[in-house]
């Protein structure tokens, strides 16, 4: 499905298998995202391994009224994985400033038992 767009011959051997299997689990996809993001940053749209690098926008920059609030459980959950880890900037698309604020907010929320430190390890 996506193979013709990917420019198969250009791809490095190591990653070929990874991109081809686009039906893998979500957690697997995150690691692949990392490589893709790096390529995007370096060489614009054409030069990357994959043409359609979706540029993510920091949701806090896009909406100035939105504030990072450690008390808001639903908002903070968006930045946590199912296991309770903080989602990195390259995935969430936050800018550096707001990612720092989010990270601080999550850590505050954890101290108050609003957010989990870890999920599923009893």
């Amino acid at each position, binding site marked *: 499905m996506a193979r013709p767009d990917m420019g198969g011959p250009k791809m490095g051997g190591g990653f070929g298998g990874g991109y081809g299997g686009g039906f893998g689990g979500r957690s697997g996809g995150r690691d692949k995202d990392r490589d893709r993001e790096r390529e995007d940053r370096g060489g614009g749209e054409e030069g990357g391994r994959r043409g359609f690098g979706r540029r993510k926008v920091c949701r806090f920059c896009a909406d100035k009224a939105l504030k990072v609030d450690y008390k808001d459980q639903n908002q903070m959950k968006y930045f946590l994985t199912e296991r309770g880890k903080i989602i990195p900037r390259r995935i969430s698309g936050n800018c550096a400033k707001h990612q720092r604020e989010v990270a601080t907010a999550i850590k505050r929320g954890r101290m108050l038992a*609003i957010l989990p430190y870890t999920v599923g390890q009893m």
Partner: protein
Amino acid sequence: MAETKKIVREYETIYLLKAETPDDQVEEIKERLRGVVSREGGKVIRFTNQGKRKTAFPVARNAKALYMHCLYIGKPGLVHEFERNLKMLDVVTKFQSVKLSDEVDFDARQVEPDVKIQPAEEEPKPREERGEFASGEEPFEGEPAEGVE
């Protein structure tokens, strides 16, 4: 303007009480903390009772806790005194203070009434039980259809 503004800081403290704390004790703690703040020359803006909520992990061997939020202004030493009082109370299981603002005009900041928020997700009740209680207030999600028939 010759008069000097009294510049203070704004803080918020969230403290967790044991879920089974009776209401009058919650009020008692509130009044005690209000006394602490005013004794230290500060002002409580408002208390918010956020209700019993499920915690992300067991706190004091309990899966639920009563969340209280207090917003107040005062001098830096106030927080220490505030937290010292929280430590003395056995029903308080956790607390955390955060500075919200460095410069607040003491007189301009108005005191707000206390708020009590009912948590959105109550204990999940069986559907038919919920329908009986909430049919008048929430006429959507197809539940009134059962009531009509």
